[in-house]
């Protein structure tokens, strides 16, 4: 009963509005898919082609997950066992970087290292091997998925290990446990519970991976559902096939999301290494060498492609690139879309939070109110179920009769980017608002602070930081995104990632490298702004 009636009504209204808008946007896309030439869709649902695509999508996701999580485990164990590893905090921070690098740019970096002309293959050739590692096809896709997900899995596993009480390590040392016993009785129980959730998360990311597969795969033998949808629309113009594939995609993500809902969510709170506990095990030379190898190998694996982006980018004539009209136009387009998507995301999350707050404040919320609150939470994650490319396909079909889809493209991309950022932004903002309310709600209510006065004196000074965090995160995501743009990209709508991609396809790689470096730096800057803010919101 902390809100006045007017405040509660306003919260419900905000929530309802955001709910209606999201439901409408996603609903129209899905209905367009379902009602489009149903017979044609059915005939394409179970063909050898879709079957092969489906199998490859799942197969590469399974392999990527096994490799990412399997290889992350020894790295996390080694980092946890070596609290005073030289430069440990920087290694842990490095593991957060790939998440902030636009996927397309990461792919460029990987090509720079693992490609035909890359460092590794050069090395292998001088060693006398004539069969180079292929960055294209399944091996390339796996390599790229491991590059993006091994660091993520490492951080989550490390956080799980560091959440163990310090006494556990002291106890295991005083009991004289050997490394295998420590693993069996302390380390494994600590990670066992979180591995399923981490695996599900990585699997989800790999099963819906678009950009990496587009750049590194794409041939008939290495195409995922997302890329196949894109190809069906963009190259073959076969909407029924795109629709059939989109429906399969929704089915797959639905199943994964359902599985994930049953697992506890992992979080990387505590993967800071600041309050590392003392470890007395693993003092033997072989254990030291093994940990050194695991950490160095992972570090090199992550850092090399990033260094390659930097090195290749610096070779380009950055100044003439920055001042070129193509870059300026693309940067303008990208920033307009990113800032719109960012502001939309923050406003929508606040509306959703206001709606949920209003219900939480009710004394006896009825079934309607409670399902309203649950729907608000679900809606903000809807894009996980209906991926961007599927949304884009639906809207492509809706808008095509109205003329050139390119006219609406910028707005569509901004809205789709907003939906993509929403689940993550909600994870930042909702706890921040909740903590703030827990501290101030009773006091504000008793003093009669409400409306603008509360917003100005009480809410904004405290929430400005998490709001900025959310905004910069959403903007980084939008700036680096190729998925939503890919369907609509044309001469009228060139964003920075699209510019990089088209330069790449026309083999003007020098330009692409320069652009990639700049885009990468912008996104990393925004992400770093985001993550530092998030820590502040959690602690303070």
């Amino acid at each position, binding site marked *: *009963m902390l809100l006045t009636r007017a405040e509660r009504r306003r919260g419900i209204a905000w929530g309802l509005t955001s709910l209606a808008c999201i439901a409408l946007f996603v609903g129209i896309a899905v209905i367009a898919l379902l009602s489009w030439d149903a017979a044609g869709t059915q005939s394409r649902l179970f063909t050898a082609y879709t079957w092969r695509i489906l199998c490859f999508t799942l197969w590469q996701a399974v392999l990527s997950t096994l490799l990412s999580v399997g290889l992350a485990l020894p790295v996390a164990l080694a980092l946890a066992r070596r609290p005073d590893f030289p430069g440990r905090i920087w290694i842990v921070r490095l593991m957060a970087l790939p998440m902030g690098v636009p996927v397309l740019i990461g792919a460029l970096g990987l090509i720079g290292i693992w490609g035909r002309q890359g460092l590794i293959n050069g090395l292998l050739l001088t060693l006398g091997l004539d069969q180079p590692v292929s960055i294209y096809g399944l091996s390339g896709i796996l390599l790229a998925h491991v590059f993006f997900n091994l660091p993520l899995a490492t951080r989550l596993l490390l956080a799980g290990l560091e959440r163990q009480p310090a006494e556990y390590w002291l106890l295991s040392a005083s009991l004289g446990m050997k490394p295998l016993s420590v693993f069996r009785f302390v380390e494994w129980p600590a990670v066992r519970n979180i591995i399923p959730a981490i695996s599900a998360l990585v699997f989800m990311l790999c099963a819906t991976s678009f950009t990496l597969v587009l750049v590194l795969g794409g041939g008939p033998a290495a195409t995922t559902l997302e890329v196949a949808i894109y190809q069906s629309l963009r190259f073959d113009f076969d909407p029924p096939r795109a629709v059939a594939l989109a429906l399969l995609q929704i089915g797959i993500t639905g199943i994964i999301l359902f599985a994930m809902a049953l697992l506890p969510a992992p979080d990387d709170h505590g993967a800071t290494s600041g309050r590392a506990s003392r470890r007395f095990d693993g003092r033997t030379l072989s254990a030291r060498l093994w940990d050194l190898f695991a950490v160095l190998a992972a570090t090199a694996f992550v850092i090399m492609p990033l260094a390659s982006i930097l090195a290749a980018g610096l070779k380009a004539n950055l100044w003439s690139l920055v001042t070129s009209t193509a870059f300026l136009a693309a940067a303008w387009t990208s920033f307009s879309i990113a800032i719109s998507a960012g502001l939309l995301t923050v406003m929508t999350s606040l509306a959703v939070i206001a709606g949920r707050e209003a219900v939480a404040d009710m004394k006896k919320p009825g079934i309607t109110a409670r399902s309203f609150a649950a729907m608000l939470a679900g809606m903000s994650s809807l894009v996980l179920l209906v991926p961007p490319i599927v949304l884009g396909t639906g809207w492509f079909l809706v808008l095509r009769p109205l003329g050139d889809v390119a006219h609406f493209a910028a707005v569509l991309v901004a809205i789709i980017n907003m939906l993509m950022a929403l689940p993550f932004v909600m994870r930042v903002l909702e706890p921040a608002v909740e903590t703030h309310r827990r501290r101030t709600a009773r006091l504000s209510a008793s003093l009669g602070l409400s409306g603008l006065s509360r917003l100005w004196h009480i809410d904004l*000074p405290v929430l400005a930081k998490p709001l900025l965090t959310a905004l910069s995160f959403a903007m980084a995501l939008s700036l680096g995104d190729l998925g939503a743009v890919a369907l609509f990209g044309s001469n009228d709508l060139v964003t920075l990632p699209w510019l990089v991609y088209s330069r790449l396809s026309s083999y003007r790689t020098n330009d692409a490298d320069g652009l990639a470096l700049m885009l990468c730096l912008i996104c990393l800057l925004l992400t770093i702004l985001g993550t530092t803010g998030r820590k502040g919101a959690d602690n303070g």
Partner: protein
Amino acid sequence: MADGIRLQNVELRLGGRDFRFDCTLPSGAVTAVTGPSGSGKSTFLNIVAGFEAPDRGRVIVAGKDVAEKHPSERPVSLVFQDHNLFTHLDLFTNIGLGISPSLTLSSDHRTAIAQALERVGLGGYEKRMPGTLSGGERQRAAFARALVRNKPVLLMDEPFAALDPGLRISMASLLLDLHRETGNTVLIVTHDPKELSRLADHALFIEHGQIAFKAPTAEFLDRRDIPALVEFLSN
């Protein structure tokens, strides 16, 4: 009697538990609310403050039925155990918000704030941030805000529980001084029998969501036939 607190057949179901309160608290006196943890002490206070609305019954504060009123519309001031101040605002602003939620303050108001700070022993602390104060100083600032609000009823939820014992005694005497100056009605939730005997004119024992016993302090402290009360007093 006009400024007192009266709960008339108040019933509330919360988290699967039933609360039933019916009592009159004397006006212009200090009444302590005690009871075992989870008995409903804080719920009792929340009903008076307006953070919980009763399912039925009347809540009369200072002569008006406020059962349906928002906390801000009730003639009460509040002091919690913690989080009494907005940590990002200085003391002047924190206390000023007690006068005007939109912080439109006249020069008289400013003088009143300075005087209130002076009165609680924080003279000249206007620009200090809550984070730079000790726990006791923060509670003093909360008292200063209650002073400028000038409401007939002061509700306190274990206001000294986070302070060390020596500080509790000096804070209690400050509270009593302020109480005598303003003649307000004070309701204080406490789990400390010493605090109860130090502060309260009347005491109220809550058990299982109901008022088990209510009496003037001397009589309250002598009562020996309620096992839970005896156990509470022996702490």
